[in-house]
């Protein structure tokens, strides 16, 4: 396990790749909000990314996994500042490929808009940039989760609640619920994350690096799966048939192949252009 102090918070990260990683393409994997930590990406991407010759970086967002949990500082810009400080702390100077799942993709877009010189490409896994609509929907979903837990905990113990969820929806869902409840009740994410202001659409539209938007046909973009293509100048959409929001855990190997194959192609295209 490795830790680094970035932006005043202890950040847990894992780095895997070739022994001599100078010159290797850098891929930074960014996980989702509340239900997630670096493990979901690490488990399925770390070994294959290293085998592909990538210098792969995985990290726990503040308030998540094994990273620090400051009492305050959960606006979107706190997360992009952490990412900037992490890259700086790891002495990564070349532009990186950002792979973000769910909220991780939102961070990736925000970072690409604010620091375009540091980003080679963005892969968004059922995600999109921060907008008022994103804030409303995400906040609502997370608030529902907390409210349902509070309601249940009034009549049952935490153990009974998790056992009940596990029996009804499986162990994995119970674990996600447990993680989200812990994260959302121990850090003021709901209060600070969605207050905005968010970057105007015109600013988001300046993200001109190659973007791959992987969307589940039943995911958050089901009503408009190719919306990002209209917004961004260099965006490709891959629609995963039958996929929901949690594409990575639903179809880990297909998503892995799509993500790593696309990043490898970007590197080939760049080498050819140079």
């Amino acid at each position, binding site marked *: 396990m490795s830790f680094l102090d970035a932006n005043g918070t202890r950040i847990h990260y894992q780095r895997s790749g070739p022994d001599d990683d100078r010159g290797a393409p850098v891929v930074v994997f960014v996980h989702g909000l509340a239900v997630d930590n*670096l493990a979901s990406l690490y*488990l399925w991407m*770390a*070994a294959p990314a290293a085998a592909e010759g990538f210098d792969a970086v995985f990290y726990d967002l503040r308030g998540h996994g094994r990273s620090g949990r400051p009492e305050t500082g959960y606006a979107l810009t706190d997360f992009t500042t952490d990412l900037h400080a992490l890259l700086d702390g790891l002495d990564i100077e070349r532009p990186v490929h950002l792979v973000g799942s769910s909220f991780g993709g939102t961070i990736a877009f925000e970072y690409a808009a604010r620091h375009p010189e540091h980003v080679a490409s963005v892969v968004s896994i059922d995600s999109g940039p921060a907008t008022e609509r994103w804030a409303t929907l995400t906040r609502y979903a997370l608030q529902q989760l907390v409210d349902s837990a509070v309601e249940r905990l009034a009549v049952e113990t935490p153990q009974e609640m998790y056992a009940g969820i596990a029996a009804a929806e499986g162990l994995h869902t119970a674990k996600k619920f447990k993680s989200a409840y812990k994260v959302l009740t121990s850090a003021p994410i709901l209060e600070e994350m969605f207050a905005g202001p968010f970057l105007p659409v015109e600013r988001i539209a300046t993200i001109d690096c190659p973007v791959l938007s992987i969307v589940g046909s039943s995911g958050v973009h089901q009503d408009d799966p190719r919306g990002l293509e209209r917004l961004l100048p260099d965006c490709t959409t891959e629609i995963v048939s039958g996929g929901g929001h949690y594409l990575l855990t639903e179809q880990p*190997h297909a998503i892995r192949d799509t993500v790593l194959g696309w990043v490898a192609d970007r590197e080939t295209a760049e080498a050819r252009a140079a």
Partner: protein
Amino acid sequence: MTDTTEQATLADPTTAEVFETVSTMLKDILAEAEVDDVEITMDSGITEDLELESIDLVTLASRLAERYGEQVNLAEFLAEMELDEIISLTVGSLVRYVVSSL
């Protein structure tokens, strides 16, 4: 009657040694999450019985690589599995993987 549980494979000295090492690592990881006094056997389910989180597997991967060297690459072992397979892993299956990598 033949004992068909995974526990019986501890008759092999290498397996027994790896089991001890993995059990100690898992107990340390669980203790960091303030879970103490867990009984670990080869048949323990890592999720159902030990309630390990997926991030605990990331920590275990690091510690196994530190202890046995890079040839024990737990991330590589897990990367080919579906989520359900990872959730239903037993301590015995982790131990067998480590033994097979040495």
